[in-house]
């Protein structure tokens, strides 16, 4: 055999894939070519396990300007001559190995995807998962990731307006770092990552190329890993200052008529970036690695082609336009170097100076095999689903004690200690800051605004992959409904384990089907996304964690709702149900069941028709101007949602609706499709009418005011105690 198993393992290609390459080339690939195939046929670049599934996701919308997968990010028309590019991407494996740089370069990478579309990046969100903060290692990962996002994001002047932080044992060895970036473009000025004509010049701009990040795509992102230290050099090092000037230089350069295309150098570096451009343009490419500016001497062609050095972009320039481009990049003290030329045909010829060192075809490189699968529901899951909660004993704690324990826990307490490390205001468009349900940003020069949210519950998806996928979409949209925004589009980051295992295949298939069902129910497309597989520690996978980012629109940004109660004497309504009683089954997968009983079992469900009705009712009521506060009921259930509205607003509440079933299910069960809203009592009947119009149940459950939260004879807690518990919970939990 001409190639060893060790070599194939290093680039994560199977023997069968190697045979396919030999077959297609009609010869053995040389070392450089093997590296190109390893990168482009990796899961990270080639989506070989997920493409058939991703194709099932809805991609139709009258608002869609750039379809998913066609470019670096999808683009949605938001009216007023404006468009939004947005995308979420994972940087899980690098962050597990080197949390600060892994997270920082995750931010840098997604930002480049967005300005590659010609968009000015206007917002960042981050969806993070860690193991419980009671170990030093998990605190190190948590602090490193948050610090990395803070250091990189703050320096580049893009507000970080939201996201999530969740702790669970399943992420201990494999934290998740998903970064979402949003960009604003004038409609009609969207860039393509494609050359226009044969003869167009490929220019590499930004940083010089070093040995960092080699095998990032194939090695890190496309297999499980056991010895982390060995892969540390595969993690890139970020330079946010360079990114900031690169953003400005690129946005300036695309104003030139001669600049026809812009592409991010991301995973698999120059290899993936340049060859994907050729593929989009339906052309071939001549590229000379000798022209690439190097960070160090002695780098060979393989290293140059596969380096994942950060803060580099590719420009596609009409012949003769190079000088003007160089002038702009000179102003910003950056490289802009012609490294290749697009040609008619399908051949990728790579030169090192005069020597032709590789000649392959674009289509061969960019058309990896696809693997589709069906797998049965695992028996262990059926067992977990069949649990009945009627036998579950009530805890030997009072409802007030349970409330405080949950409220101060790492998963529910205020995220302020995290988001106050992120600049969430720069660019002065942030109307609703992090800490509420969804971020709201105004669109300058218009009356309107956008809302942004991320969501994804791994534990619920573990117990019910279909429902979990649907719930991720529903909750992200519900967060937007709570501020008064109508959903326009979603982006997804699918974080799963090793797809060679049938259980993971089942999770992936079902979760994607759930995402599709929910997107269909909301009539929104999935415009972009990323798949991160092989998220496993030694032997065990993470909870399947589809993270959904959503974009919504507010016609009048000044008319929006926030989560905190606004005064004394407002009527408190619960949308989505007609009584406080909740089925025992809503305990399944709940934060309460995990934290108080140490159990992860049951079968979470969601009724998408009800969900849409509830959200539409809430949005209409916000638009009607009658909503004083609105807050999604999610982790921790109804009691937690109300306690949070008390603390954020600084007002107590008396909840006096009747409750006859199990108090733990009523207070802490996680039934979906519920939103706590308050209205002036004069508007109570109007709210009920709006809910009725949509067929959304609504029940008045109490009144705001006072210095305590009391609930149906069960709870009686001082507002000051709720406040200190919620405010300080996360910093106490993560300070060790």
């Amino acid at each position: 055999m001409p190639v060893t198993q060790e070599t194939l393992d290093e680039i994560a290609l199977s023997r069968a894939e190697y045979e396919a390459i030999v077959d297609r080339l009609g010869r053995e690939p040389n070392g450089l070519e093997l590296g190109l195939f390893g990168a482009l046929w990796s899961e990270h670049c080639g989506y070989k396990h997920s493409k058939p599934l991703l194709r099932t996701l809805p991609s139709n919308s009258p608002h869609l300007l750039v379809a998913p997968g066609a470019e670096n990010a999808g683009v949605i028309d938001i009216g007023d001559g404006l468009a939004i590019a947005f995308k979420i991407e994972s940087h899980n494996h690098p962050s597990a190995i080197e949390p600060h740089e892994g997270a920082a370069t995750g931010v840098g990478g997604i930002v480049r995807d967005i300005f590659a579309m010609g968009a000015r990046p206007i917002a960042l969100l981050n969806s993070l998962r860690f193991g419980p903060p009671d170990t030093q290692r998990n605190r190190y990962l948590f602090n490193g990731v948050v610090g990395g996002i803070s250091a990189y994001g703050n320096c580049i002047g893009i507000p970080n307006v939201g996201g999530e932080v969740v702790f669970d044992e399943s992420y201990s060895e494999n934290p998740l770092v998903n970064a979402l970036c949003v960009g604003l473009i004038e409609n009609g000025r969207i860039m393509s990552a494609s050359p226009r004509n044969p003869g167009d010049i490929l220019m590499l701009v930004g940083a010089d190329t070093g040995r960092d990040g080699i095998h990032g795509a194939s090695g890190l992102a496309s297999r499980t890993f056991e010895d982390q230290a060995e892969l540390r050099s595969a993690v890139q090092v970020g330079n946010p200052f360079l990114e900031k000037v690169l953003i400005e230089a690129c946005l300036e350069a695309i104003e030139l008529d001669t600049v026809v295309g812009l592409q991010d150098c991301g995973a698999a570096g120059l290899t993936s970036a340049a060859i994907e451009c050729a593929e989009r343009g339906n052309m071939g490419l001549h590229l000379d690695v000798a022209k690439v500016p190097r960070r160090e001497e002695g780098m060979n062609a393989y290293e140059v082609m596969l380096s994942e050095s950060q803060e580099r972009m590719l420009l596609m320039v009409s012949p003769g336009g190079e000088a003007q481009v160089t002038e702009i990049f000179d102003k910003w003290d950056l490289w802009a170097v012609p490294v290749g030329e697009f040609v008619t045909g399908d051949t990728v010829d790579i030169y090192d100076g005069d020597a032709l060192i590789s000649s392959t075809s674009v289509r061969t490189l960019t058309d990896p095999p696809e693997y589709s699968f069906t797998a049965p529901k695992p028996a262990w899951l059926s067992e977990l689903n069949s649990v009945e909660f009627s036998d579950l004993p009530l805890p030997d704690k009072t409802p007030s004690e349970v409330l405080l324990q949950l409220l101060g826990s790492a998963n529910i307490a205020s995220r302020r200690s995290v988001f106050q490390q992120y600049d969430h205001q720069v660019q002065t468009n942030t109307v609703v800051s992090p800490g509420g349900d969804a971020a709201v940003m105004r669109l300058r020069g218009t009356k309107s605004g956008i809302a942004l949210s991320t969501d994804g519950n791994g534990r619920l998806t573990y117990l019910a992959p279909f429902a979990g996928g649907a719930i991720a979409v529903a909750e992200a949209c519900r967060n937007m409904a709570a501020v008064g925004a109508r959903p326009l589009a979603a982006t997804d980051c699918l974080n799963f384990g090793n797809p060679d295992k049938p259980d993971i295949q089942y999770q992936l298939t079902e979760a994607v089907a759930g995402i599709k069902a929910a997107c269909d129910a909301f009539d929104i497309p999935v415009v972009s996304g990323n798949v991160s597989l092989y998220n496993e520690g030694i032997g065990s996978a993470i909870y399947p964690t589809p993270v959904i980012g959503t974009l919504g629109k507010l016609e009048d940004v000044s008319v929006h709702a926030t989560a905190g109660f606004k005064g004394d004497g407002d009527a408190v309504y619960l949308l989505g149900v007609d009584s406080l009683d909740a089925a025992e089954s809503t305990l399944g997968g709940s934060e309460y069941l995990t934290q108080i009983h140490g159990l992860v079992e049951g079968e979470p469900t969601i009724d998408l028709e009800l969900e849409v009705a509830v959200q539409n009712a809430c949005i209409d009521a916000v638009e009607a101007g009658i909503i004083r506060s609105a807050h999604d009921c999610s982790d921790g259930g109804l009691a937690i949602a109300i306690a949070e509205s008390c603390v954020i607003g600084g007002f107590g509440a008396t909840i006096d609706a009747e409750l006859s079933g199990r108090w733990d299910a009523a207070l802490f069960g996680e039934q979906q499709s519920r939103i706590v809203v308050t209205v002036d009592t004069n508007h109570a009947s109007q709210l009920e009418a709006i809910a009725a119009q949509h067929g959304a149940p609504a029940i008045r459950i109490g009144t705001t005011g006072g210095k305590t939260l009391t609930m149906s004879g069960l709870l009686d807690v001082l507002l000051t105690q709720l406040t200190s518990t919620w405010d300080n919970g996360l910093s106490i939990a993560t300070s060790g």
Partner: protein
Amino acid sequence: MNVAILVFPGTWSEVDCHRAFTDVIGHDAEYVWHKETDLDRFDAVVVPGGFSYGDYLRCGAIARFSPVMESVKAFAEAGKPVIGICNGFQILCEAGLLPGVLTRNEHLEFRCKWVDLRAETTNTPFTHLASAKQVLRVPISHGEGNYQADAETLEMLERTGRIVFRYVDEDGNATAESNPNGSANNIAGIINERGNVLGMMPHPERSVEELLGGDDGAVIFRSMVTPTAAAV
């Protein structure tokens, strides 16, 4: 009035400052690239926030060598108003236009949040429209805003009324809890001896619209564009 808004590589609040002057206050403003040297057409200079040169080496330490800074010095010597916000404050300290230094926040973390500032003096071109001891709600956003100077300098700043803003609680008391970064004497902003060069860590340009959470900061820009007897 025509306001120069300086832009260094890595500056990011130039657009926010520009909009505060043009959209909100209704005056002219122009971006000035750091390699330019002609400030003659301007009536005031803003050194905005950001991470000039990535804050590598030390905040403001590289930006101070930019060609425009010599012109800023001359502009200040001519008695015209210069305001440095956040990174701009750091640059003015590095350039020797203001005394002291901005070190890492005492808790070693970046901090972005709304704080309360007390206007310690209204006898400046930047605060003359504020009321005495007015408390202004303005955001901070920095990792290195911990103002420090030697005891003699601090005593001189206090004695000569050159501390313009102090971090306070919402009732206007300068407490340890209301100090977000460990600054000596809760100092948030100081002015030069002549009274025409102000440096402040908080971002008044983020506090000019109710929609974004408050407009207390606008009084600083309004003061700058409104003639006073004190202004030279």
